[in-house]
């Protein structure tokens, strides 16, 4: 047993580092480091670069154009990208609906959608949650009625992240209201330009507007855009959720935030000394670093099991819980680190192109909004309460 990367893993790491060095412009790096928002174009440009280097869609099998990286390699990739403050990837196409399409979709769907996802030609968003169905996803009410070659869809989706940019939405809809909750659901792909689709931004408490309501009013969806069988959508939805949860630990991102926290602690002063020398802060930092190590090595242990061919079980749920707690803790420590300068509200300072004098240190402006915003992470993707319910039922047998 040993913890070192193998020779081939080291070579892969070097390849990623070289790619980042050559392709990641300093101005984008600076923006990501400071927690500023990126535009649609910046994100897409980065995704295209990754794809050109064979580093996009890391889990996708070769037959669908992916590099089919092994779990540990994906971990190395994610960590390098995060540690270098590269733009966050939009997961809805590449991580979520892509695998559903290549696993359950028709040949026509694969041919039509997969290349465009890989090439970031289509921006996808997710139509799962509804106003009445949050944690209880299967209670969704959006109705799809078959009329000839089409489904006619009526209902409302909500919390739809980045729907304002999206070309397509994948939706869970109810096709058999008489069946048991989980048995009457169908998985549809809907063109956002279809008449009857309306997007309304939801302003969140941090002042952002990344999430949306999506209203579906007599939206006609060709039957060919149904994935798999009618009324079997729940199976595909669960497949997707497990995929999604594995990424949610975001260890690399948290490691990057930890570095940022240490940098800020070198600038901030408390009791006449640097914050980094403050005994209480040092102990809190040590506590958090150790928790992050435990998260990292738990993920690595699981990835090693996946590499050895074991099927994933409870692991994804555990990583979701602890990973999001870590993100929240770090966002809180970062906000605490700047003392009074957590107060000023400068929404424009988070936008592209703002170049007025900051109030207090430039790094402070994004920290309170980020803390507010990260409260979402224990709610979305199956709240941490739901994760515990799942673990209790399926792992402990309770």
């Amino acid at each position, binding site marked *: 047993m040993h913890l070192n990367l193998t020779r081939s893993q080291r070579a892969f790491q070097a390849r990623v580092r070289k790619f980042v060095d050559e392709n990641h412009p300093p101005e984008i790096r600076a923006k990501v480091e400071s927690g500023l928002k990126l535009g649609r174009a910046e994100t897409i440009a980065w995704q295209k670069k990754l794809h050109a280097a064979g580093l996009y869609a890391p889990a996708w099998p070769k037959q669908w154009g992916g590099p089919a990286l092994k779990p540990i390699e994906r971990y190395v990739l994610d960590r390098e990208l995060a540690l270098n403050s590269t733009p966050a990837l939009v997961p809805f196409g590449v991580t979520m609906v892509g695998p559903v399409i290549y696993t359950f979709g028709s040949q026509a769907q694969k041919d039509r959608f997969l290349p465009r996802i890989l090439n970031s030609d289509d921006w996808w968003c997710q139509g799962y949650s509804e106003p009445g169905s*949050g944690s209880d996803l299967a209670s969704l009410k959006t109705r799809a009625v078959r009329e000839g070659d089409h489904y006619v869809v009526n209902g409302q989706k909500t919390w739809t992240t980045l729907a304002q940019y999206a070309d397509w939405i994948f939706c869970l809809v109810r096709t058999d209201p008489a069946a048991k909750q989980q048995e009457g659901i169908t998985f549809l792909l809907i063109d956002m330009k279809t008449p009857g689709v309306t997007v309304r931004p939801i302003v969140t408490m941090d002042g952002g507007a990344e999430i949306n309501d999506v209203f579906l009013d007599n939206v006609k969806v060709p039957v060919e855009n149904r994935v798999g069988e009618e009324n079997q959508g729940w199976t595909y939805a669960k497949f997707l959720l497990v995929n999604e949860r594995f990424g949610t630990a975001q260890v690399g991102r948290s490691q990057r935030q930890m570095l940022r926290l240490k940098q800020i602690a070198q600038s901030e002063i408390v009791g006449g000394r640097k914050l980094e020398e403050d005994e209480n802060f040092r102990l809190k930092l040590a506590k958090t670093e150790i928790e992050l190590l435990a998260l990292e090595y738990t993920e690595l242990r699981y990835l090693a099991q996946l590499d050895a061919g074991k099927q994933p079980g409870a692991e994804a749920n555990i990583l979701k819980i602890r990973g999001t707690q870590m993100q929240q803790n770090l966002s809180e420590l970062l906000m605490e680190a700047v003392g009074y300068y957590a107060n000023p509200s400068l929404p424009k300072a988070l936008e592209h192109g703002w170049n007025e004098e900051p109030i*207090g240190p430039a790094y402070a402006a994004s920290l309170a909004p980020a803390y507010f915003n990260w409260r979402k992470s224990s709610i979305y993707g199956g709240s941490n309460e739901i994760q515990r319910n799942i673990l209790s039922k399926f792992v402990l047998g309770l």
Partner: protein
Amino acid sequence: MDLSLSEEQQLLKDQVERFAREAYAFETRRRVLRSEAGFEPAHWKQFAELGWLGVAFAEADGGLGGGPVETGIIMEAFGRGLVLEPFLPNVVLGGGALALAGDDAQKKALLPDLIAGKTKLALAYAERQSRYDLADCLTQAAADGGGFVVSGHKAVVYGGNLADHFVVVARTKGNQRAKTGLSLFLVPRTAKGLTVRGYRTVDGLGAADLALDKVRVEKSAVLGPLDGGLALLERVVDHGIAAICSEAVGAMAVLTDMTVQYSKTRKQFGRPIGGFQVLQHRMVDMTIAVEEARSMALYGTLHLDERNAKTRKRALSATKVQIGRSARLVGQEAVQIHGGMGMTDELAVGHYFKRLTMIDVAFGNADWHQRRFADLS
């Protein structure tokens, strides 16, 4: 021991709570929030008319002769409504400093107008490097003829965006963190060399950073003892702590109640989420956190008149730690139990959460006061 309210205090409480409930319905508040000023001048006028701006001041100063208990009653009710008007910076901080240390001329010049709602004050003490250390002060006031020339930078002055007069802490002696050598100065907003950069804060209130570039003030502008301002500043800030702790208790009580009510109506898996034992126990823990915060807010308030400064400071630090811990638990759980709805700007829960978060930051967070408490033990 007597923990009961007098008849007048009970009337005041009923009155302010009614205002918070009726005049501060969530949609009204959103409108005020979106306004340019960020507060409602009509409300301020009403506060003056009802005597709320003067209730804690001595009768000799034009007030109603109340004290910390009255301030706590008002602040708790304002916390319930998340009231946006700048009561704390004016009445507790700026006005408090004047009431505690002003000479007759200074009081006469400002307190009646403050109490009448005609002029606004703010206390400028923190600096970029000082964090929560009240003695840490780089702003210099150099004697110059009969007066002083003040230069430096003041950080995150609560209510500074609206203030007509500032109480500015500056160093007249000693090095950056010396415990002696601080003095307080009354500086009008219109003073030459003073630049006020006002802004809104993430909890919807307002503040300012001040740049003082050779601002000249007369000797009559010195508030309280020359070189001996730290003890005064500490006392004023302790009043501020008690006041926002009461505010926090009001906010937490409403937020907990709001969460319990939401859990009774929001259904998931075929039943109200309030039926799930895990959420029940967490709401119980929120309730306990509010109860303990309430006890400690009272404890702090009733220690403000304590003569032994060390005992007073220790008590207020204990209060601030408890409120910080309680507010964190209550705020975070309230958002979590509200789920996605808790994240939106459209529901009150996020607004309470943000204010409670910034209350922890104000005057030193829980960690800071835990250490101050230990140092004073």
